[in-house]
C-alpha cells in the first residue's frame, strides 16, 4: 500500500465523521443550544458509569444480531427492510412461550432462544414467499409487514396480554424470573446475551467467507440469472437467507424481552431493525467492521436520553448523528470511487 492510498483510506475513514460533526453542530446551534454541552452529554451520558457501560453492552446485543442477519440478506442482494418485523416476531413468539410455559431456567432460557429464532424465521418465510411467489418487492413486503407487526404487538399488549391491573404503556407483566437472561454480577449485562451476539457475528463471518452457501448467496446477489444457470436454486436459497436473517433478528428481538426489558413493551425493538441497516452500510457490508460500528451506534442510543433530561433537546439527536455519518460515508465512498476511476 503506497502513501497515496494510505492517505485516501484515512480520509475515507475520518472525513464522514468530521462532516457529521460539522453538520450536527450546525443543527444544534440552530436549535439554540450549546454544541459542546450537547456532545458532552451524549458521550457523558453513555460512559458515566459502569452501569451505563453495561447498558451499552446490552444495547449492542440486538443490534449486533440484526446486523449479522442483514449481512446474509445483503450478500444475497436483498434489501431486507423487514428485519424490524422479524425482531418483533421473535419478541412476540418469546413472550407467548414465556406466558404459556412454566419451567425452571435451564429449560426456559433455551426455549426462549428457540422461540425467538423460530418467530423471526417464520416471519422471514412470509416475506420470502411474498417476494418469490407473489413478486412483491421485499422492500414493500417487509415494510408493510413491519407496520402490521407493530399494530399486532400493540393489540396484544393492550388486549389479550395486558397485565391484570389494566393496560398501560409499560407493557405486559414482567416475565417470570426463570425467563430472565443470567447477568454478570449486579450489573444489567447478561453474559449469555453478549456471548450469543458475539458468536452470531463470528458465524456469519465464516459463512460468508468460507462456505459454499455463502458463495452461492453472493452469486445470487450479483447475478441471479447466471447463478440459476450455473445450477443454484435461487428461490430456495433466497428464502433460506431471509429465514437465517429472521432467526438472528428474531433472537435479537427475543433478547430485548428476556435480557433488557424483561417484558414485552410497545416499541420493543427500539428501531433496531432500521438501525441495523445503517450499521451494515457503514461497515461496508463487512462482518469484521460490524462490532465497532455497533459499539458506536449503541453508545449513541444509551447517551441520547440524557439530552432530553438535561437540555430539552430531543433524544433523536443520536439518530441524526447516526444517519448523517452513514450518509456522508456513502457520499465520500462515491467521491473516492470517482477519483479512483479518473486516475486509472
Amino acid at each position, binding site marked *: 500500500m503506497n502513501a497515496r492510498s494510505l492517505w485516501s483510506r484515512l480520509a475515507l475513514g475520518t472525513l464522514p465523521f468530521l462532516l457529521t460533526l460539522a453538520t450536527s453542530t450546525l*443543527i444544534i446551534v*440552530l*436549535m439554540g443550544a450549546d454544541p459542546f454541552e450537547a456532545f458532552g452529554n451524549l458521550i457523558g451520558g453513555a460512559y458515566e458509569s459502569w452501569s451505563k457501560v453495561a447498558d451499552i453492552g446490552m444495547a449492542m446485543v440486538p443490534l449486533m444480531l440484526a446486523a449479522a442477519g442483514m449481512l446474509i440478506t445483503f450478500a444475497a442482494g436483498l*434489501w431486507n*427492510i423487514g428485519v424490524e418485523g422479524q425482531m418483533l416476531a421473535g419478541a412476540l413468539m418469546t413472550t407467548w412461550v414465556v406466558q404459556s410455559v412454566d419451567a425452571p431456567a435451564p429449560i426456559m432460557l433455551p426455549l426462549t432462544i428457540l422461540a425467538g429464532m423460530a418467530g423471526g424465521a417464520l416471519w422471514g418465510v412470509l416475506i420470502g414467499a*411474498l417476494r418469490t411467489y*407473489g*413478486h*412483491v*418487492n421485499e*422492500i*414493500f*413486503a417487509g*415494510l*408493510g*409487514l*413491519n*407496520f*402490521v407487526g*407493530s*399494530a*399486532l404487538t*400493540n*393489540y396484544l399488549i*393492550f*388486549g389479550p396480554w395486558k397485565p391484570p391491573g389494566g393496560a398501560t404503556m409499560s407493557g405486559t407483566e414482567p416475565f417470570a424470573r426463570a425467563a430472565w437472561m443470567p447477568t454478570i454480577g449486579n450489573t444489567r449485562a447478561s453474559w449469555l446475551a453478549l456471548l450469543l451476539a458475539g458468536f452470531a457475528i463470528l458465524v456469519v463471518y465464516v459463512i460468508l467467507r468460507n462456505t459454499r452457501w455463502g458463495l452461492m448467496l453472493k452469486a445470487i446477489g450479483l447475478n441471479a440469472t447466471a447463478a440459476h444457470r450455473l445450477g443454484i436454486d435461487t428461490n430456495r436459497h433466497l428464502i433460506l437467507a431471509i429465514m437465517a436473517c429472521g432467526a438472528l433478528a428474531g433472537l435479537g428481538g427475543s433478547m430485548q424481552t428476556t435480557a433488557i426489558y424483561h417484558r414485552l413493551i410497545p416499541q420493543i425493538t427500539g428501531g433496531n431493525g*432500521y*438501525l441495523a*441497516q*445503517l450499521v451494515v*452500510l457503514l461497515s461496508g457490508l463487512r462482518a469484521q467492521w460490524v462490532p465497532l460500528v455497533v459499539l458506536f451506534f449503541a453508545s449513541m442510543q444509551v447517551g441520547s436520553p440524557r439530552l432530553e433530561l438535561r437540555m*430539552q*433537546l*430531543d433524544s*433523536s*439527536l443520536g*439518530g*441524526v448523528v*447516526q*444517519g*448523517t455519518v*452513514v*450518509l456522508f460515508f*456513502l*457520499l465520500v*465512498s*462515491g*467521491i473516492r*470511487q*470517482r477519483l479512483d476511476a479518473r486516475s486509472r
Partner: protein
Amino acid sequence: MQSGVVIETIRSVVASSTPLVFAGIGELLTERSGITNLSLDGSILVTAMAGFALAYATGSVLLGFMLAMLVGALIALLVASSSIYLNQDQVAIGLVLTLLMTEVSSFVGRPFVRVPGPSVPSWSLPVLSEIPVVGPIFFDQNILVYLGYVLTIGAWVWLYHTLPGLKMRAVGERPEAAFARGVPVNRLRLLYSALGGALVGAAGAAYSLNVKLGWSHKHTAGMGWIALAIVIFAGWHPLRVVLGAYLFAALKSLGSLLQPVYPNVPTQVFQAAPFALMIIALLLVSRDLGGLERRVPARLAPMVRAVIHGSAPAGLGKRFEQG
C-alpha cells in the same frame, strides 16, 4: 345511511387524499425519468415539519409550503446526484435518507409538537359547488385539492401529449436511445427529480397544514411508503395514481367510520389496514393472469401488459454514463 353522510364521507376522502396525490404524482415524475426516490417517507416527515414550523413562525401558510417544497426538492436532488455523479445505489441512499430525515424531523420539530398553527383556508368554488352531488364533493374544498386536479391532468397531458414529456419517457425507458437523439439525459433526470421532490414537499406541507394539522413525533409515518406503492400499483400512470390515492384515503375514512359501528374490533386493525392493503395491491399487479397477453390482438398486448404488470420504466434505477 343518509345521502348526506355518504356525500360528506366521499368529500372527506377527496380532501384527505390530496397529499397522496401530490406525493404520488411527484414520485411518478421522478421515476418516469429513471430515478427512484426511496426517501419519500422521511421527506414527507421533514417537509411536513418544516412547512408547519415556518408557517407557525411567520403566520404565512404560503411561506410554509415554499420551504417544504424547497426541502423536498433538495432531498430528491441529493438522491439523484449521488446516483449520477457518485455512482451510489439509489436504493441505499434513499433508505439512509429516510431514516435520517425521520430523526431530523423529530429533533428539529420538538418545539412545535402539539402546537396549534395556521391552516389552509377552505375555498368553495362558485357555481361549480352548486352542482348536486358532484358539487360539494369535488368543488367545495380548498385550493390544494383544486391544484391536485390541475396537477393530475397536467401530468397526463405532459406525459402523453407533449414533446418534452415524450423525451422524459424516453429518458426513463432507454437513456442511451434518448442520448443518441439529443436529449440531455442526466440534466433532465436532475430536473424531474427536483420537480418531483418539490411536489413531495408540498405533500408534506399538505399534511401538517391541512389534512392532519400540526406536528407531532412521526406525524405522517408510513405515508411515504404508501405513496411509493401507489406509483407501482398505478402502473406509473397519473390518472391511476389518483385512483390509488383515493383508495387509500377511503380506507382511512372507512376506519373512522366503521370503528364506532364495530367497537369490538381493535383500533390496531384499522392502523394496520393501509399497509396490509398496500401488500395486497402490489400482489395483484404482479400476477401473470394466465398469459392474457397472448390472447389479445398484438396491437393491444403491450397495453394489457402495462395494466397487469404495471410496466416500470425500463431504465428505472440504472445509471447512465455519457460519452
